């Protein structure tokens, strides 16, 4: 049966390894979320722009990245990226196969997916900012940067926060797929433990509990952040 000593922190226990792996899951999710934020802001800007070509490109991006399996994007970035790296290295005179670092490949792949979801969140939030406010800011002579910083960004952030919370939850759960690249995050570590102790149930249950702790903890944090950010619009 499930043995708690298995996850102790002594030399024979797997506790420390599981905690390290949890930290890796967090690190790769945060990285992909940041990549997704930059990409998502760019795609949302394209989708809201006046140019028809940019709008079509933005729509195509969100449709495709939300319509194909995340696992496929990870394979594409990991193996495709490795092929590109190998080709570039060959052109520079290096021989043989060069792999793409799994942390980079994983966070980039999840970041690309995250960008598609975040773009939709930012777009919706930007549309929620009343036009009159932007006109008033322009009438006061505010520059584009100042308008973004003082008028758009604070309101977009407050409106987008619940949506971003959902994207973060998706990202946490999706990061388990990065285990296919061999990156030792929570699920990969559990596979290793399951393999060497022949106790798969114990390890996958432990992984499940840790993921549950991560998702529940972040739900609480996002709830608090939302409460803070909506101070000005909350009813007393």
């Amino acid at each position, binding site marked *: 049966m499930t043995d708690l000593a298995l996850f102790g922190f002594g030399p024979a226990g797997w506790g420390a390894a599981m905690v390290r792996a949890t930290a890796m899951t967090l690190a790769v999710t945060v990285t992909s979320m940041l990549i997704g934020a930059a990409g998502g802001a760019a795609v949302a800007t394209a989708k809201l722009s006046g140019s028809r070509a940019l709008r079509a490109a933005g729509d195509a991006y969100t449709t495709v990245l939300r319509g194909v399996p995340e696992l496929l994007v990870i394979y*594409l970035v990991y193996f495709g990226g490795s092929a590109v790296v190998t080709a570039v290295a060959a052109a520079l005179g290096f021989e043989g196969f060069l792999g793409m670092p799994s942390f980079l490949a994983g966070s980039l792949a999840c970041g690309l997916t995250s960008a598609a979801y975040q773009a939709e969140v930012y777009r919706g939030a930007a549309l929620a900012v009343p036009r009159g406010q932007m006109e008033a800011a322009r009438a006061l002579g505010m520059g584009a940067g100042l308008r973004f910083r003082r008028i758009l960004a604070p309101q977009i952030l407050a409106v987008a926060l619940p949506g971003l919370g959902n994207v973060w939850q998706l990202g946490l759960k999706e990061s388990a797929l990065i285990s296919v690249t061999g990156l030792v995050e929570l699920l990969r570590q559990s596979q290793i433990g399951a393999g060497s102790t022949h106790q798969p149930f114990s390890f996958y249950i432990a992984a499940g509990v840790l993921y549950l702790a991560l998702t529940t903890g972040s739900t609480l944090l996002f709830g608090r952040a939302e409460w803070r950010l909506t101070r000005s619009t909350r009813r007393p």
Partner: protein
Amino acid sequence: MIDLAFMGDTAQALLKGLPLTLELFGVSALAGLVLAVLIAWMRSGGRVLRGLAGAYVFVFRGTPLLVQLFLVYYGLSQFPEVRHSFAWPFLRDPFWCAVLTLSLNTGAYTSEIIRGALAAVPAGQVEAARACGMPAALLFRRIIAPVALRQALPSYATELILMTKATSLASIVTLKETMFVAARINSETYRAIEVFLCAGAIYLALNVVLARAIALLEWWLSPHLRRPPDALPGLDTPLDRAVGLEGPRLSGAPRP
């Protein structure tokens, strides 16, 4: 360089995995829907039922699908009791493990969609129906179900699209569906970009068809939200001009 002949061969090979993808999707979506209705019903029941259903939804929405799949496929075999039980022929088979996991997973998400849709039915309408003396079954059929169904469809479409994408995880437990075939061709040819672009196109096409179908269903279910037609469908000429009427126009003006 994109090699069209190779892409063609790859697409043909990948399409051989499509029936299994569709089977996984269809069976799990159906089982998940039944489960979701049951869970949504439990959540409106007594304290024990509500607690159980809430815990189930919390666990399955809070953990990655791949962890759930590994727990069912690899984890359960840790117990000799399971290995010697009547369920072992099923739990040993990756197909049934994948179906079980996908159904449990989508059941949790879908039950929340159903719960939200039921909560969105205006209380006044239900009260009015009760005041008219409608029995519970009629009330559900005429008032609650039509409103809740329209409310749930857009979110359910999203959930179904997530499901088609989730079937690709079955490739990790050795089921030879579309993604499995793609990964195998990639490992044989090292032409990742062509192979996965091809597979991506198949999944995308599947999801676009799915989204269109549900959008069509939504359109068909909500005639009251559609703009009233200007003329008979299929006729470009407005009705008044077609029959040569002078005087007040029969079309064009918005109806009150």
